[in-house]
């Protein structure tokens, strides 16, 4: 009897311990894989990745960015879905005024199983056009499995910091600035003396 209670307790404990893990594993996460800092004028790529997904057959999402800081030049299919078979990829509609790429979509072809695990869904090529910070946010996410059931998902945003071009003062400029500050300082001292005298 004691043994059976002990085994039961272990089983209950195992279920309790495993349950949260199982629940978490049911929710896929789409994330923008960058918090990079890039110089103004440079071109770079940003990956949109998925993790903890099971039987992914097709997906769709929107990506938003700050158009004053970034301009989107190209969208390329990621390799994750291709591991399951042939695909049909539709890059999103790019609006560099509003700052978004809407309805980026990809689907497997044929009555085949979906893809599980972690990988890259799509790659976005940007040019850094202005200094500042641009968040890269995902929305309107649709994920389906091979039975046409919708999959739950969460999103994680990324951000890119674009550093502006700064001018390094030449030595002669520094010299002139130094002389200017010294003159101002001397004038301030003389002015203070007058106040004290009055």
């Amino acid at each position, binding site marked *: 009897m004691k043994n059976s209670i002990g085994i039961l307790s272990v089983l209950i404990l195992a279920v309790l311990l495993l349950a949260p893990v199982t629940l978490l594993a049911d929710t896929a996460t789409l994330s923008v894989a960058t918090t990079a800092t890039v110089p103004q004028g440079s071109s770079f790529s940003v990956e949109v990745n998925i993790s903890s997904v099971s039987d992914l*057959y*097709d*997906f*769709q999402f929107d990506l*938003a960015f*700050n*158009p*004053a*800081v970034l301009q989107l030049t190209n969208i390329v299919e990621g390799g994750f879905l291709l591991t399951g*078979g*042939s695909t*049909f990829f*539709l890059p*999103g*509609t790019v609006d560099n005024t*509003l*700052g978004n790429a*809407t*309805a980026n*979509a*990809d*689907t*497997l*072809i*044929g*009555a*085949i199983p979906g893809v599980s695990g972690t990988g890259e869904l799509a790659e976005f090529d940007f040019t850094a056009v202005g200094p*500042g*910070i*641009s*968040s890269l*946010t995902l*929305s*309107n996410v*649709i994920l*389906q499995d091979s039975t*046409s059931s919708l999959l739950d998902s*969460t*999103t*994680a*945003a990324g*951000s890119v910091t674009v550093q502006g071009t700064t001018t390094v003062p030449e030595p002669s400029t520094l010299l002139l600035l130094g002389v200017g500050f010294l003159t101002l300082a001397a004038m301030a001292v003389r002015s203070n003396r007058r106040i004290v005298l009055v």
Partner: protein
Amino acid sequence: MPVRKSRKLIRAGTLAVFLASSSPLLRGQTGQPSVAPRFALSARSIDSNQAVEGWPLILQGTFCHPQVYSRSVNVSPLLINSMNGSWSNTVHLVVTDSSGATQSWPIQLVTIPSGPIVLDAINVGRLFWVVAPSNTEAIAPGTYMVQGTLDTTASAGSSGWSGTTNSNIVSLQVAPPLATETSDQQERQYELLAEYDQLVGNDVQALNDINTLLAQQPNSVGGLAWKGTILEQTGQTAGALAAYDQAVATAFAINPDPRAEPPEALLTPQGRLRSKLLSQSGNRGTPAIAIQLLDMGTQAPGVVFFDLKISNVGSGIAANAVIQQFAFNTTAGTGQLTLNNVLTPLPPISVDYLAVNASTTVRIYVNVPSTVTAYSIAEMGEIADIFGTPTPFTETQAVTGSGPLLGDLNGDGSVGCDDLAIVKASFGKKVGQPGFDPRADVNGDGVVNVLDLSIVARQLPAGTTCP
């Protein structure tokens, strides 16, 4: 005179001049009472004092007479004359950072009233300013102060109130974008986006914002109420009432015993909209239902889908139409049809608020044996008028064959890359938009997206590559 004493006198004199020049209480216009309007400023983002980069920021100014809503005092009105055509031009906002440095935020005044305004015991003026989501992204995180000033000294003329009055200072904490959002934060973001889009005059986008929220949180009472508000403001009374009905039902489902806190904010517009619908219909009228077979096709071997168009062909608004039961009758061949309970929402299937001549579409899936070649579908249910009085109905459609192959959008008898190309050409389009091809909306939900694309893709042979 000692130097220290003379300085004190100078300070006192300066203070008196400052008060005389700056306080509107002492500088009332001739013939006007010596009172100043009140100017209250508030902000809305994630809450009243915290904004998030990438979210819209909304600022609201309220202008009123100090004795507004007073019943016991004879209130002398305050006239705020217009400047360059609008009294709103006498108001400006100043933003400073925590060090006191003035900021140049792209704040846009979105409600520009024409002419002057009179503030008295009843009339109150309101102005709204917004900072677009794309512009809040450019604001560095930190603490900022926003203050407004109403300055009529240059525009008062002989009849208007002349003076300057400042609003309260709004302290605003600007935070970086949220890495992850709770469901409450997601609800708040979409409601804020909807309010922003309404303020800038884009009601269609405002409704899209709320529909996006409701797609992710169908039981968002706030989202449903917002939907009702937007639909009411755009003249879609029946749809607005349906949204408020759903909001009320959801609120009561969440809190079945709301005696302590009845949802007055929902019940009031719900009652107003119901009265409006009645007055629009002119008389009680009697709704009547007609159901037609709009489209059909093969979902999978042995499974046929039917799009049923449900129309109100009566003389009054239908508050509700419910299909309670389906019946199938084989008229040629052998075998019995059954409702596919995996794919079809189980009856009762309910449709709320159908105006006269309005219609909506419902898709059902039926298991059809290959030995059946002709059959009929019948729907039995009730249609209720605006007071809820039900009238039973039975509608029947005759069907031959099993319809076209699922995914064969161009009707050439097979599913191929040319069918995927039809979806591609309309991808992202919604019904009513230029470029929307109803053939591409395979699942009939009014938008062409990956759900349609994958239905076609599944029917293609594995390994197919399409351009």
